């Protein structure tokens, strides 16, 4: 009976405490297209250019915000197509640098290096997979990206939900 007494206040808070893993947030919304840059702003020679992603409307717990920066991407123009990579390293989430002198990507945290096509370019890189590619489309001369995050440090690319 004394045990019941001491467990009671903890029990009262268990559901609330576990809320973040309960799936109470409901179905994840479809990932919106973010307008990132004008196509003409990208170098023709395929040099990666870095852009911030700003989402029109983000709800963070009780606050609904407008025009919120949610991350950044590298855009690479390849003919009429555009490739997009999430700036975050798939290893443990540091921001990846573009090294223009070596024409590659390099993560300054744990020294993963990636080729311009996003694949791991050095066998000693700790990253288990290449940079995270993102869906893109071009409309009226503007590049749109479906920006999302993925689970770190797995060979497979699994979206974070």
């Amino acid at each position: 009976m004394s045990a019941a007494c001491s467990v009671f206040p903890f029990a009262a808070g268990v559901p609330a405490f576990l809320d973040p893993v309960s799936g109470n947030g409901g179905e994840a919304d479809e990932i919106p297209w973010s307008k990132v840059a004008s196509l003409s702003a990208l170098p023709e020679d395929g040099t990666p250019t870095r852009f911030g992603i700003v989402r029109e409307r983000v709800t963070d717990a009780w606050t609904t915000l407008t025009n919120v920066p949610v991350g950044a991407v590298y855009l690479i123009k390849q003919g009429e197509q555009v490739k997009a990579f999430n700036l975050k390293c798939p290893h443990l989430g540091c921001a990846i640098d573009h090294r223009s002198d070596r024409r590659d990507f390099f993560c300054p945290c744990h020294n993963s290096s990636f080729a311009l096509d996003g694949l791991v370019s050095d066998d000693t890189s700790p990253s288990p997979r290449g940079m995270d590619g993102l869906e893109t489309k071009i409309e009226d001369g503007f590049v749109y990206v479906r920006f999302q995050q993925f689970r770190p440090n797995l060979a497979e690319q699994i979206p974070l939900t």
Partner: protein
Amino acid sequence: MKAVIDWLDDRSGFRALIKEALYEKVPGGARWRYVWGSCLTFAFFAQVVTGTLLWMFYSPSVQTAWESVYFLQYHVWGGWFLRGIHHYMAQAMVVLLVLHLMQVVIDGAYKAPRELNFWFGIALMGVTLGLSLTGYLLPWDQKGYWATAVATNLIAEVPLVGVYLQKLVIGGTEYGHHTVTRFFALHAGVLPGALIALVVGHIYLFRRHGIHAKEPRPKRDSYFWPDQVLKDAVACLAVALAVIVLTIYFHGAPLGPPADPANEFPARPEWYFLFLFQLLKYVPAFWGAIIIPAFVVLLMVAQPFIGKSEKGHRFNIGFLWCLLIGAGALTFLAFSEDRANKKHFAAVEEADWLAKRVVEIADKQGIPPSGAVTLLREDHENRARRLFSSNCASCHLYNGHDGRGFPVDSNQSAPDLAGVASREWLEELLDYDHYVSAKYFGGTAFKDGKMATKVLKKFDEKEKALVPKVAALLSDIAGLPYQKPLSEKDREEGFDVFFDELGCIDCHDIEDEDEGSAPDLTGYGSRDWLTAVVGDPSHERFYGKDNDRMPSFARDEKLTEEEIGILVDWLRSKPSTNSEVR
């Protein structure tokens, strides 16, 4: 296993500690009257645990305090339950405090050598009440905001340092971010810390002197374990159960509308502070908040000395009973005064409505960074009610009240506008007895006007029977969102009555057909028509020089076009509550 326990015991001595804790002697055997201290310890433990869990959801700032509590209450799994347990356990603690104090004094457990421990108890009572007071503000809702403002204004009554003390407590001269952060630090840090320190001292002294057994002793002496522990646990479980029942019955703790310094709310503290609140109606604040409480506390501190003689002991018990009965009577008075006060009742109703409304809007639109209070400030429904109350209700009513639900003091002098332009409203209006009643034009010059005396009064039975057809036509022209449109046939019939059988057209225009001296009914009751009437009733199109006292709200720039639009949309949006919709 035993080896591990032996190893631990060798290094910590925990066996001796447990033995010391459990084999406390209970002279006269275990008794139910000893459970209150354990119940309080249990309640405090529950508050620390649930409070820490609540901490994981709370964000102390003006724009996020209410909002984070709203999120916990309505969007976190079991959040309402957690909050409810903390809320009702706090109330249970106050009740348990009183029971514990009464038991100690009645049993004489406060006398030598336990004076010091009695004083610890008084200090603990003060800290617990401080926790209640600071916790009440944290949700930053109207109730907490306005009630705590009263409490912090009383701090200024403290002699010499009061003004500085008040500034220190609220973190400045006005309520703001620092009020929330300071109250939160007090509630979750300073006061619980003080309480733990005092409880340690309280229990240490209690153990040092042992249980004070009330004579006669019913049984042989026993030990704390297992008899008294069992009784204590049963009592604690009963407390927990009561708190769970309250939480489920009321579906958690209430959360009022977000704090709004621009909109008043009748400040009421938690029920256990109501006696102090009531006292301030009879005595000056300095006496009610400082002198009398200080006198009571001083007298309680002196009780161990007063109680040295049997007479003194009886005085002490009598004094506490008087205190309890006095507080109870004041509480009863406070409740019954509020119950008899229609304005207070309306204010509570409005707050309930606002609380529901803001949750509705927040669920739908999300809360902007400026906080939930802006949602209400921009809500058209809420704005319309307030606009009506402050601009129209001095003459017009709305369902018999001022638009916000408050009773109106002065005599109504113009029509009740709930359900304006609806069939039901028009049918009544076009009945002579209703037309000259206070609900319609009874308070205006139109009571003796042509429409009343020359038209409606003169209607014979046949003409009276035709009135609903005109009412139906006019309300159809109004196109109210809650009424079904007329069939083509009924519309034509309505026009026939309007033009020929009743001859309304002799004075009123309709569909720009003719010129007339009475108000133009073209587009009657529509958004444009109502906007124009409110904007300038003295216009030739409407009452002209016959207009009786109604201001021209747009022409004289009393209201903006937007405000009139909000009012008109609201008037057109709902039927009157005392008529059926057809």
